[in-house]
């Protein structure tokens, strides 16, 4: 009898656990638009494919990356991406040597200019790759940033 009630208890608690994990999953399903696969990809190409739908890019001189040549503190590297390419609908930034190369991706509205600025973390000296999508095609530009103190780990 005792054993039976023990069993009942475990079944009930495991069901509770399942319900709790289901509850935990709900907020994530709301964020379906967030490209989870892109932020789990360990390579630049993989991240690009998941975030922008393709990894075939052509280099373009019309993308400007404003970032320091030498970043003293890798935890805060201010970057600005601006482009003169018309009809830009997405901009993404990749940091080649970071554990997860994709730093951010932006979906732009029809009236939004090809300009974004933000601050990123860089683990070590690496290439910064900006990718711009316009008319279904990808264009990229690169800039090397030297990091003296890394921004990942601690």
């Amino acid at each position, binding site marked *: 009898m005792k054993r039976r009630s023990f069993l009942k208890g475990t079944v009930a608690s495991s069901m509770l656990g399942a319900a709790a994990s289901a509850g935990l999953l709900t*907020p994530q399903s709301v*964020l379906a*638009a*967030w*490209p989870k696969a*892109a*932020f789990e990809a360990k390579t630049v190409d993989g991240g690009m494919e998941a*975030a922008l739908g393709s990894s075939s890019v052509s280099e373009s001189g019309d993308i400007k990356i404003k970032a320091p040549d030498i970043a003293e503190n890798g*935890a*805060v*590297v*201010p970057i*600005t991406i601006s482009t003169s390419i018309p009809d830009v609908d997405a901009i993404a930034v990749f*940091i080649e040597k*970071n*554990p*997860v190369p*994709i*730093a*951010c*991706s*932006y*979906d*732009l*509205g029809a*009236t*939004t*200019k090809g*300009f*974004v*600025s*933000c*601050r*990123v*973390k*860089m683990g070590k000296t690496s290439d910064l790759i900006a990718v711009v999508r316009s008319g279904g095609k990808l264009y990229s530009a690169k800039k090397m940033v030297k990091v003296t103190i890394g*921004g*990942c*780990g*601690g």
Partner: protein
Amino acid sequence: MAKKKIRIRAKMKGDVTEVKALMSHPMETGLRKNKKTGEKIPAHFIQEVTCEHKGKQVIVAHWGVAISKNPYLAFKFTGAAKGDTVKISWNDNKGESASAEAKIG
């Protein structure tokens, strides 16, 4: 718990509106360790930032852990008038969210 705050500045220059936003958020990567206990600090970061103007999405940012603590975001768009409001909201991987509005000046 960190204060959920977003500071927004929106300014017109000609017909272009430049919006700058500063959010307060720890942006933990999940890779850092607590030096005393050696335990990993769980990841806690903003995943999505949305800016709306007149109910239309101007920009949607998808962020990973590589964005710095207390994130900064700036962008430009056209088609707004002085006195319009822009709304910025974010949500993070723990389901927390915040939003704020500002008038374009």
